[in-house]
């Protein structure tokens, strides 16, 4: 990543001074680079690769790579919101999911919302499985998508999805007519999705704060900073200290300037950090917690390495860890050793 960042900054600086000075910096992307980058599949199926996959093959792949997070039937609400559910045969005929407007199915599933089957293909190929994106071949992507559509009763269980039959599937997608561009997000003349009308006269009384939490109760629910996610825009106040005091103990800023440890680099390259963090519990336990539990256990390294290779469930809660067979044997041992030594 760093290799291109510096020339880019340089180019930006030069461009600010004199546009022609940027000439000679960089090079045109090669056709191979363009091919690797240009993988999007559009709603009109431009960019769709040739290939095919059956529901049956998709089921094997699903059980091996997808079910640990999405559930055997795509129904799981454990890690992500459900993929399947809330659609009916009438929705399929109409092309609009009735439950989106009613209250019959409050939680939206993927198949309730998505309007273009190309989006599903593109997303699965681009981003799934979470711990090893872009590891599915085109045929495997077709197979997984065929199985997902079968779970949603969009295609029968003997269906084979390929670059031609996917067009017919688009005509059976439950929410295919659910996308509109006649709103403010697409068109400034469209109807905005919020309506703020300024009150100009005879408005109600000025709102005022009627009650506040007394100072002694500020920490009544523990330190809010520690209860919030360590990423994203919301951090939570450090309630161990008076309001307005400088933050302490808050999650440290990303150690951008520090050169990451070799173990961390290897863990990141192996996809561990998709679900684990050094300090904080994510989907899986943090590396610190692992070290704390297995400190002094001589057999821990072998046990953990076996769990990484073969998958594990139940040791740290219900969310299973899928088998990590893409990580080389030696790398697994190196990472486990690094974790047990404190992940520094």
């Amino acid at each position, binding site marked *: 990543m760093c290799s291109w960042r510096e020339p880019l900054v340089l180019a930006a600086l030069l461009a600010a001074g004199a546009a022609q000075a940027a000439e000679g910096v960089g090079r045109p992307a090669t056709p191979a680079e363009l091919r690797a980058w240009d993988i999007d599949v559009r709603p009109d199926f431009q960019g769709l690769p040739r290939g095919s996959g059956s529901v049956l093959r998709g089921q094997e792949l699903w059980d091996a790579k997808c079910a640990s997070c999405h*559930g*055997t*039937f795509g*129904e799981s609400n454990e890690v992500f919101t459900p993929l399947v*559910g809330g659609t009916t045969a009438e929705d399929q005929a109409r092309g609009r999911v009735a439950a989106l407007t009613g209250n019959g199915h409050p939680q939206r599933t993927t198949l309730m919302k998505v309007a273009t089957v190309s989006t599903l293909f593109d997303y699965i190929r681009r981003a799934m499985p979470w711990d090893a994106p872009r590891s599915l071949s085109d045929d495997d992507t077709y197979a997984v998508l065929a199985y997902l559509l079968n*779970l949603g*009763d969009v295609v029968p269980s003997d269906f084979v999805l390929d670059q031609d039959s996917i067009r017919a599937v688009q005509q059976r997608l439950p929410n295919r007519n659910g996308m509109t561009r006649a709103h403010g997000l697409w068109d400034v003349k469209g109807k905005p999705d919020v309506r703020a009308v300024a009150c100009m006269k005879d408005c109600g009384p000025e709102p005022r704060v009627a009650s506040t939490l007394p100072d002694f109760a500020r920490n009544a629910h523990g330190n809010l900073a520690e209860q919030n996610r360590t990423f994203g825009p919301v951090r939570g106040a450090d309630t161990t200290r008076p309001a307005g005091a400088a933050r302490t103990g808050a999650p440290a800023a990303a150690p951008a300037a520090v050169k990451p440890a070799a173990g961390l680099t290897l863990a990141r390259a192996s996809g561990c950090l998709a679900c684990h963090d050094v300090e904080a519990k994510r989907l899986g336990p943090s590396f610190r917690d692992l070290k704390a539990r297995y400190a002094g256990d001589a057999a821990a390294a072998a046990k953990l390495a076996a769990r990484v290779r073969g998958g594990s469930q139940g040791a740290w809660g219900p969310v299973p860890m899928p088998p990590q067979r893409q990580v080389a044997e030696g790398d697994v041992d190196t990472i486990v050793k690094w974790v047990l030594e404190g992940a520094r």
Partner: protein
Amino acid sequence: MADPMKIRASLQGDVVEVKVLMSHEMETGQRKDASGAIVPAHFISSVQAECNGKAVLTAHWGPAVSKNPYLAFKFKGAAKGDKVKVTWVDNKGETRTDEGTIA
């Protein structure tokens, strides 16, 4: 007629793990509709799973079970290719039976 159940049964060692996804409204009888009238209770009251003609699981359910319930259980003493038959009966007497093959 309710939608079919999805049944998946797989043999791991000598244990069969069965996963079932049922399609049912599971109304508690506590909810009110837009006009304020109570939505009548409609829930699965009993579930039975059979393998080779022998009951391997019997359950009495109440209105606390979620809509479109997911059920997973394990049992011993079956081979690959055997059929697992799951039946539910709801409080209105409606019933549905589906079958899965142990893989």
